[in-house]
């Protein structure tokens, strides 16, 4: 079973290409994981992006390829490998948010 912790939204992929998108959120950072249709079922996989939320109360976000965790879209070919990644990514993203808040804010 796919990890349900920090999952704030499960929706049909808004791109309209079919499949399911899961949105995980940890403070202002999070992950968007999408599983899209494939003509060969065995090719179905997860595409995961680190995202930064633009609003505290909304699910709107921008893709963020500037963290140390990932500078590109990541691919996972099993639920197990996705879950393992999520397990490690959650504390990192939570910490990242806290560290960012400690930095001096630009006027």
């Amino acid at each position, binding site marked *: 079973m796919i990890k349900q912790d920090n999952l704030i939204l499960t929706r*049909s992929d*808004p791109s309209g290409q*079919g499949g399911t998108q899961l949105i995980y959120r940890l403070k202002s950072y999070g992950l968007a994981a999408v599983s*899209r*249709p494939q003509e060969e079922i065995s090719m179905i996989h997860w595409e995961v992006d680190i995202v930064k939320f633009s609003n505290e109360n*909304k699910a709107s976000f921008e893709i963020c390829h500037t963290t140390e965790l990932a500078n590109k879209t990541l691919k996972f070919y099993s639920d197990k490998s996705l879950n393992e990644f999520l397990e490690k990514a959650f504390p990192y993203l939570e910490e990242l948010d806290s560290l960012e808040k400690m930095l001096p804010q630009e006027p």
Partner: protein
Amino acid sequence: MANVVGAAVCRTAADEGKPADWVPGGERQKVVDPMKMFHELPREMQFITGSEAARESMRRANIDIAIAYPITPQSESMQQAGYLYDEGYIKEYYRAEEEIGTFSAISGASRAGVRSLTATSGPGLMRGMEAISSWPGARTPIIMLNMCRVINTPLAIQPDNIEMSFMLNTGILMLHAENQQDFYDFPLAAICASEQVDVTLPAVVSVDGFFCTHARGPVMITPEEYKLPPRDGWRSAVPAMDNENPPARISRDAPIQKSNFISYHMHSSWQQEVFAAVQRSAKYFHAYLGGLVEVVNPGAEDFIVASGCAVSQAREAVRQEGEAGRKVGLVKIKTIRPFPTEDIYEALKGAKRILVPEFNQAGWLHKELCSVLYGRTKGVIKDGPRVYGGMTMPTEMILETLAEFRKEVK
């Protein structure tokens, strides 16, 4: 060689390459009341494709015979049906020569009183349309899974549900699945409704191919040790036929083939009864599915009315509009036949703008809606966005159409 213990058909363990003590999976399942299966049994979430959801539905459906001819994107589901046959959950299964043969053979199986399943997609459905359109009049409660795809030239295998429009007036019960969950639930509900004495009609569960069949989604499923009660071929509007001693004339009503007033009258009344039976099925779908429609945000001024995958995209549009502080309603139509006219009217009677997004060129759902709401609602009904030929419908396309609609109708 002895039959497999308890098996209803002549499948031997040796024939199947199984150990001598093999017991078919279906024989190990317990029969459960449909209402208990739909509403009381515990459910577990699985993240599976639409084809796999169909497999799990078939596993619990107590299918006696499946006959199909492969076509993309249906092939994946019927490959899964093959696994079920191997495991002993489907008692008989074969690949027919093509679709006219498939749909004629499955009609014979259903007339014999057994639970019969077939599946197809776009062009396959069109090829077998002559046989399909004879099912309702023959009062054969067949279950057909239809994975929608483009039917016209240029050839494409992508999702487009135009083929559903060809079945609207056949007398078949029609359901349209939004997602993998529906493709698990709807076939079970359709089987139970179609086999009721006062219904006795075939049912088709359509789903938008690839978007659902070849993609994974969350599905809450019941334990696999439970299955539906078997079909009782004698508990039927038209009793089962003894296919080993068939009547001399297969046609159930020979006088109907004459050209005189009585034959016209018979045919007319027979058709009236078929379409009345479609309406009578509504109460069963209400009970099994909790309603023929799902309404989100009742009382809104703006409504989106959709079926199939368009619902999922509309659902996200409604959510995003909610985030922006705008309340938009959604009517998901689960059953296309019976068409839930009164439920829709009830949901839309206060609506000002009604948008109907579709995955087909004809806009058949928009036309249906206009015809049943004509003169009954003050709301303006607009078709769109409409995509076809395998095109996608991004959520923002619905949001843009909605924004334009608000400018057009103040």
